């Protein structure tokens, strides 16, 4: 208990004094489980998007595991890309006087105010997975390089397709910044192949069932397509099922994005040509480590606030090493 109190005091270096009493109060419950950890003590609030999606579930699990390893208690909330709910969770974190917030923001512009509010209240915010449109507020912004990921995915896909024919695109939720970034990344590569024609672009809102339904109808309109590029794995898996039902999977090459476990299985089975792994586990681990460093030393240890981590292409060559969003040996 004494140790947690001292750590909490250390944690307050660089943040305003107001947080002091509350933070040590809160630590009385946190102490027990914090004992095994190396440093830290105190509470880290993890605010994520949607843990029903395996990708974000990996993010939450990583953040919680790493924080507990470093001796912190954690709270977990999910805002489902709703900026209002994100705001409420930030308010909640402020009133609970947590020591740091790990946030996967709900929108680049919408989240600036929320991050500012927490920072003003003396709680350092560390962003993972997505960025906000202003710098100098959050302590670090660790994003996976979606544009680079889309580029390597599209390159692998175009090599399999052969650079010729009609294809369709399944687009993510249009309000999600990453949907546009990935689509642009695909377009940038594929525009270099004049014989490749994008005949239709549909949104399936990141969802498997909707991906399947949209694909079934698009196959009616364009029975002669040679490929599908998808903004994420779930929609791609829906498209694959539609192609299977129509007996057309042999003629169509499908590209996914995210590297989720089901997609890995599909790549292994040769149903999906490639998917792109966002290094969410690495990025989240880094964010928690930087939060810990900041709470201990007052510095994140990273040279810049914005840190982009490159994505990894997953094909049948390396899919065997992929286990639940982590590349192993």
């Amino acid at each position: 208990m004494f140790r947690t109190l001292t750590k909490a005091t250390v944690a307050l270096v660089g943040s305003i004094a107001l947080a002091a009493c509350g933070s040590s109060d809160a630590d009385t419950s946190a102490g027990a489980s914090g004992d095994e950890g190396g440093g830290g003590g105190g509470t880290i609030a993890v605010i994520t998007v949607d843990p029903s999606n395996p990708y974000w579930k990996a993010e939450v699990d990583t953040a919680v595991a790493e924080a507990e390893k470093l001796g912190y208690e954690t709270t977990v909330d999910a805002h489902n890309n709703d900026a209002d709910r994100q705001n409420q969770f930030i308010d909640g974190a402020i009133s609970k006087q947590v020591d740091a917030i790990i946030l996967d923001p709900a929108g680049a512009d919408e989240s600036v105010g929320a991050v500012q509010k927490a920072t003003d209240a003396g709680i350092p915010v560390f962003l993972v997975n997505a960025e906000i449109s202003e710098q100098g507020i959050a302590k670090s912004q660790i994003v996976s390089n979606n544009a680079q990921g889309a580029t390597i995915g599209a390159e692998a896909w175009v090599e399999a397709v052969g650079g010729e024919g009609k294809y369709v695109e399944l687009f993510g939720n249009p309000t999600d910044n990453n949907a546009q970034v990935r689509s642009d990344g695909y377009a940038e590569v594929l525009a270099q192949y004049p014989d490749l024609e994008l005949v239709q672009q549909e949104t399936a809102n990141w969802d498997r069932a909707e991906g399947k339904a949209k694909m079934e109808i698009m196959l009616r309109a364009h029975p002669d397509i040679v490929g599908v590029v998808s903004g994420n794995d779930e929609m791609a898996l829906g498209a694959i099922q539609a192609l299977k039902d129509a007996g057309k999977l042999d003629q169509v090459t499908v590209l996914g994005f995210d590297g989720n476990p089901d997609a890995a299985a599909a790549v292994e089975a040769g149903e999906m040509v490639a998917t792109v792994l966002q290094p969410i586990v690495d990025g989240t681990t880094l964010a928690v480590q930087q939060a810990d460093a900041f709470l201990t030393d007052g510095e994140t240890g990273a040279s810049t606030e914005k840190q982009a981590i490159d994505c990894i292409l997953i094909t049948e060559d390396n899919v065997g090493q992929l286990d639940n969003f982590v590349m192993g040996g």
Partner: protein
Amino acid sequence: MSDTLAPERETRPAPPPQEPRRRRINLGNVLVEGRALVALAIIVVIFASLSPNYLQPDNLILMTRHVAMNAILAIGMLMVILNGGIDLSVGSTVGLSGVIAGYLLQGWDMPITQLVAYPPVWVVIIGAVALGALVGYVNGLLVSKLNVAPFIATLGMLYVARGIALLITNGETFTALQGEEGLGNTGFVTFLASAPLGIPMPVWFMVVFAVGFSLLLNRTAFGRWLYATGGNERAAELSGVPVKKVQTLVYVMSGFCAATVGLLLTADLPAATPRAGEFYELNAIAAVVIGGAALSGGRGTIRGTLIGAFVIGFLVDGLVLVGVSVFWQQVIKGAVIILAVAVDQLQQSFQKRRALRKVAASTNRPGSPSPA
């Protein structure tokens, strides 16, 4: 299911407005009353002229399969809406029942005993559907016994059911649904995603549900009770209708329909994901409303609801087929829903005025001509 129960006669004070008695055929009436059908015809004509693929048999079957999921949900929703309630939890129930089915097919870690049970497919199906009905039963008790407003009770259940689905899967997706020969639990996907006589299983389910619920509404005491409670609950209660029982049962039926859709959707993907069915309640409500039901209760038919589901499904798929931009798709879908309800309101006030005029005419009969 007895037709001769006493209360049936006593519900006469609040008869359903669509009593077919002595209706004169009149083109204007047909156009207004069959407006959902007219809307469907317009949609079909427009898309058929825009795309040669639209009316191909394969495409019609495909679109009908998409419609079927929403239609089954909408049939359950109609029961609740006829009662004057609303069920916002059906989308979550779809997800929950699918997840339960997936969980049981993958092997059920039985508590205490260290055993894993692999129930046969029929047990899985009955279990998942029973769970859906149970969710509905809880909704029904909240509404009928605790007097919680239906909107609130089922909104709460929307979160509870989705949360339980997430807890069961721990956020993951079950994909090993094919079962194993040795365990005797194969056939879930092959049965529910099959297409006997070339017609997909969801469409067969839609037909069976439509006929079954139609008989229930039109040929049983329960049906008359339901219309009566929705028309005027107090009057129905005074006439001896078991109002609370009817109110509870409609939510059970809605949960039952939702769970069935959950199973069909899971077999279709084939994957059980806790996110399945998100926002499905909105399409189901839209189908019921386009089909001419009144949200205040007491008015609506299975036939209208089916047409409503076809209007939405054929519109959405048609927009994709001809390649209308994603954002316009949403605008057009919303506009069609609003238009349908606006026409419905016009019809209501028109009918009311005509009825008043008739009353006036019959009371003034001796000599004086009607004021119209």
